[in-house]
């Protein structure tokens, strides 16, 4: 069993899905011969043919709309949007149709599609290539939004997304595409959706995060450990619908919570988690919930991107603040 990266795990999951079901179709811009700009679909067209792995014209609204059409016919389309910065033309299709077809037709027509996109900053990419706007999708009833943060979860969650009978937006943290390797058994086993993953057990403070930020968050937890602070680290993984139970249980134990995400703070998914903590966990909170996030300004071009994104230092400072108070 080889050790593979996240991007390889994404590739492996799609290959497995293509292998297991003739209904799985992969498409998007440059996903064919080129294998995707990040190589997520590398080799898939060669192995599964141009009918099942194919390049589309350059049109994101079309990509989403076609995925919906295919899904309505019982296919399992897995469509790639090249970067999250180009996902906006899909919104009308996603919010008006993907999320509503089942509801609208009272279950007669369903929409088991996956819309994949690499997201997040930190790779010194050009303008518009570093977006984290998952909150927009997390606000849409009828959708699932899933974000893996390790090769194992990339494999297991993508398979789960493809098998899911409802539409899933699957966002891949591109900064950590090749950052770590894990042994991943290509056993076709999906991981559960709609639940958080516990990355680390601790008692003093709960750190809640997802995507590439799991990296900084775990680093912060390491450093804090050395200083005698024990962190519970939770990878939310499915940010819509939210598994608040796991988060609330953790905070009930620790009494403190720091939420870390790359996206702009205002109306980010961190707000929802913090709001639910305030609603359902107020009495267990010893200190105000802290959010360590991207700022409410345009994600700067790459010279300043590290000043925008949450750093290990910022996370540690926020943890210390929750420890100081109350």
């Amino acid at each position: 069993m080889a050790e593979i990266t996240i991007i390889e795990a994404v590739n492996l999951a799609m290959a497995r899905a293509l292998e297991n079901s003739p209904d799985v179709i992969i498409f998007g811009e440059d996903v064919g011969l080129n294998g995707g700009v990040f190589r997520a679909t590398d080799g898939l067209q060669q192995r599964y043919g141009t009918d099942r792995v194919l390049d589309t014209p350059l049109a994101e609204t079309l990509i989403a709309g076609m995925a919906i059409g295919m899904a309505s016919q019982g296919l399992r389309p897995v469509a790639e949007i090249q970067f999250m910065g180009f996902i906006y033309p899909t919104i009308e299709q996603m919010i008006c149709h993907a999320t509503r077809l089942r509801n609208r037709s009272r279950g007669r027509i369903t929409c088991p599609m996956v819309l994949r996109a690499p997201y997040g900053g930190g790779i010194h990419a050009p303008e518009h290539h570093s977006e984290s706007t998952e909150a927009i999708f997390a606000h849409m009833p009828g959708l699932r939004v899933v974000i893996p943060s390790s090769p194992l979860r990339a494999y297991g969650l993508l398979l789960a997304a493809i098998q899911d009978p409802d539409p899933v937006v699957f966002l891949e943290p591109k900064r950590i595409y090749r950052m770590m390797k894990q042994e991943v058994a290509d056993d076709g086993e999906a991981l559960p959706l709609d639940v958080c993953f516990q990355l680390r057990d601790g008692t003093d403070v709960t750190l809640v995060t997802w995507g590439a930020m799991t990296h900084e968050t775990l680093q912060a937890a390491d450093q804090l450990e050395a200083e005698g602070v024990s962190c519970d680290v939770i990878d939310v993984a499915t940010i819509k619908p939210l598994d608040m139970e796991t988060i609330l249980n953790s905070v009930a134990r620790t009494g403190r919570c720091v939420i870390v995400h790359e996206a702009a703070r205002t109306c980010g998914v961190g707000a929802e988690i913090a709001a639910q903590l305030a609603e359902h966990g107020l009495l267990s909170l010893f200190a105000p919930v802290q959010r360590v996030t991207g700022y409410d300004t345009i994600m700067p071009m790459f010279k300043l991107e590290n000043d925008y994104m949450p750093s290990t230092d910022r996370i540690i400072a926020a943890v210390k603040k929750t420890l100081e108070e109350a």
Partner: protein
Amino acid sequence: MTNEEKKCVAQFEIHYTQLLNQQGELVGPLPEFAASAEALIALYRTMVQTRTFDTKAIALQRTGKMGTYSSSLGQEAVSVGIGSAMRFEDVLLPTYREYGAQFQRGVAMSEILRYWGGDERGMAYQHQPHDMPITVPIATHVPQCAGIAYAMKLRNEPRVAVSVLGDGATSKGDFYEGINVAGAWQLPMVVVVTNNQWAISVPRDVQTHAQTLAQKAIAAGIPGEQVDGNDVIAMRHVMLNALERARSGAGPTLIEAITYRMHDHTTADDASRYREQTVVDEHKLLDPIERLKKYITAHHNWDETQENELHETCAAEVEAAVSSYLETPPAPPETMFDHLYETLPDALQSQRDEVERLGKQKQGGDDNG
């Protein structure tokens, strides 16, 4: 600029088909199907049925028994032509004026009424498993149509996906994205533009400087043609040909059906704000139902007895649908969660419980509505 330096590299023509003129006289060769009285009378019946429904639906809205409704008055030949040419296993992606096609495809009148009555169950289409529900966000169904057509092609099914949209809709980007991929992938797909000359208050000429809407097809490198949309024989004929091409693997077609929106945009609209009634009146002369009636009267012995019988049958059918609609008990409020996902996520259970509890409270107290 002289001619030498410019080389012509591509040439295109757009054609227009009319078979029955305004007076109901044949002006082109009769298509095979149209030799049969039965076939023509079937088209006639469905047009009358559609109009009978339409009149009643407007009345329901006007008397507060239904919400906003969009009339298909004057456009029956387009819709009936489409519906009559399609096979049951094809897929129709309609907008909100395709009753004529929908009824032929098994959608119940009571379902359409339920839909405009504000009830999702009006999109369940109990007897029509294939078709998409009415699409409200303009042109968004064209990319979906391409996806459906791709599924058919991939599976080698001899089926066709048909989307119908308005003249206004041809201005929206997704329309072009959809027809472009239909060309690029040679999909089994037909796109019908029902050019009824208006997009709410915006006349056709304000939408685009293109002299025909059929020529939008040229951008996608696919065949585009115009047809008299008030001539149901031509409409069905052109549609049959396009479906046959698509079904046989010869690719997509764009059809511009020229007709006229005789009613307000919807019952929420007041067209007198932006168009002269005299112009509308002129278009009455082009009425598709009258036109076919003249033809079948002249050529197939259609008479007043048959006409009266037909109107009675249609009226009875519509009345039955209205009763069914009015008698439908409202869905319990908590059902708003029941088709959101296949299985309700745990996170939403408490919301569903709340709605159920409040619904029961309300039922206990005042009545629903």
